[in-house]
């Protein structure tokens, strides 16, 4: 494959340009993930052949089509159990689950809940563009209350999910919220997540100018990007209570949880070794 860009060595360049609409934040996120991986691989803390991607269905999950790694584009909402299946039998793998807010927080809600409860050794990156993009702009669990979507034409009557609080409450080792408007910080969060045992969860505020932007009157990529940037509040070491997720008050980004409890895989191995007469 031909190489131009410094990240091309991690990309299936023959699949570029990506399928995403102009100005979609997902490509920015993919760049951050690949740069974070590049740092890990260069410093020797990750082996390239041990990196695997898994995504469900949706624009965000399509991110699995481009990285030049082992990669799985599976079914809607089910990337987490797929990735965990890989991880259990090949613990040396670093499994990165990428999905949208619908994929991870709606249809995949049960799986993220239990993956976090287990502190399963996965890096879960939830791209949150506050809308169902691929299917044409329907309401998501992350859609701000009151906003128009194609399935809530009189305004979204539902409360938004603050998944940071969920992930923190259920005991993930690492919980952060980043934004594609703040790329060095986002890259750093993903870099850190890649080094964690247990479950590392990164919610990423992203932009969908084509649908979400159209719904709220910021149709051009730059307008939506600029609008989101205005509403992002960067905090250093914010508490979980400070993790505001609000169109009006703003979206607080930062690292909310960083702990180092044993991950599911090592506990499972320890318990399993009892069966084989190990110390356990």
């Amino acid at each position, binding site marked *: 494959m031909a190489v131009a860009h410094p990240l091309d060595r991690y990309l299936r360049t023959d699949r570029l340009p990506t399928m995403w609409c102009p100005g979609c934040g997902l490509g920015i996120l993919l760049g951050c993930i690949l740069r974070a991986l590049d740092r890990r691989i260069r410093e020797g803390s990750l082996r390239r052949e041990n990196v695997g991607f898994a995504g469900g269905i949706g624009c965000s999950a399509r991110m699995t*089509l481009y990285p030049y790694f082992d990669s799985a584009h599976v079914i809607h909402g089910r990337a987490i159990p797929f990735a965990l*299946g*890989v991880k259990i*039998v090949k613990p040396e793998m670093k499994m990165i689950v990428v999905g949208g807010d619908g994929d991870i927080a709606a249809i995949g809600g049960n*799986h993220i809940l239990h993956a976090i409860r287990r502190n399963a050794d996965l890096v879960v990156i939830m791209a949150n563009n506050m809308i169902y993009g691929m299917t044409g702009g329907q309401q998501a669990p992350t859609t701000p209350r009151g906003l128009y979507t194609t399935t809530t034409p009189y305004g979204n009557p539902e409360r938004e999910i603050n998944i940071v609080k969920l992930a923190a409450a259920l005991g993930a080792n690492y919980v952060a919220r980043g934004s594609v408007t703040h790329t060095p910080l986002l890259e750093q969060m993903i870099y850190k997540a890649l080094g964690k045992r247990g479950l590392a969860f990164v919610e990423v505020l992203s932009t969908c100018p084509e649908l979400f932007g159209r719904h709220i009157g910021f149709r051009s990529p730059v307008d939506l990007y600029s609008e989101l940037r205005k509403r992002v509040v960067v905090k250093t070491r914010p508490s979980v209570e400070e993790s505001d997720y609000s169109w009006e008050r703003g979206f607080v980004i930062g690292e909310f949880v960083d702990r180092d409890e044993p991950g599911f895989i090592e506990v*499972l191995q320890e318990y399993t070794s009892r069966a084989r007469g190990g110390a356990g």
Partner: protein
Amino acid sequence: MRVDYVTGNTAIALGSIAAGLRFYAGYPITPTSDIFEFLARELPKRGGYVVQFEDEIASINAAIGASWACAKSMTATSGPGFSLMVEALSLAVITETPVVVVYVMRTGPSTGVPTRSGQYDVLQATYGFHGGLVVPVLAPATPQEAFDLTVRAFNVSEKLRTPVVLLSDATIAHTYGRVVVREPGEVEVVERAKPSVPPEKYRPYDPGEGLVPPMACFGEGYNVLVESLTHDERGYYAPRSDVQRRLMWRLYRKIVESAPELFDYGAAYLDGCDVALVSYGSTSLSTLVAAKILRSEGYRACSIRLRTLFPVYEEGIRRLLNGVGKVFVVENNVGLYYRELRGVLRGSEVVSVPIIDLDLPQPREVVEVVKQWL
């Protein structure tokens, strides 16, 4: 090799171990939980993993994931759980993932009578998922067959890179029997074909000369693509008719053209048979005895127990029942598999014998129904 006295469920668990099972993902459901519990105790001793997931959906998807990490994997469930798994079965079909799904049928629809038997889901086992392709379905009737067919299910699954359904039922699950148990290394085990080309030349869905592509796994440097979208040989999404056509026909042909090899049945009293009682699973025990009774009463009856339900090997079934005047398809449902056979056996009169019984149908009951048609 040793002789044991175990239930159908335990025989399945033992068979899976013999075949090289390394990952079992499960969610408790009657009447399969003892497969799960047995493996939870035994598999870790052999270096395998048994994990209880949050639902059947997670279980099958985790099993598919583990298979892509090169572990032979399995899950077991019954009707309600299988209904949740069918979407992922479709994924396993298009991604050509070897995985064994044990389906222990119980009484339905819906919750039905969870502890009792029936054969209501025989068509769901292969037609239940979207996409219109065929998944091999093997059906044991005794604990020994449960053991043997479990090993076979893994082998077929690895050889053809396909999910395989092992279709049992609540009766077989709790039937005890003498079982010749073979240990790993004592049975013929098929391992999936691995790529012979270097990673940069590997195309994950390129079957080469055959119909089944070699399979690299996660973590081997091959940059594999597991793709649920219609894909070309590289695994790249290709929404084009020619690609869809090529993929569909290959996925279809690799199963259907294996039908002769997959075909498996047991026959009794074939000599001069003019009245064939065709059945599968636990009901075939009733049918076997019924045939014996009919013989004793002067009818030229025989019994055929189908152990491979799908793909339907039409030629083989026709040859087997060639010249038989009347074919009775006996099943514990409203007459489902009969629909598969009636079109196949054009030379014979094919009669459905649907028996709905929470227990194993009494052989006498089968005899009485059959005699009405003789």
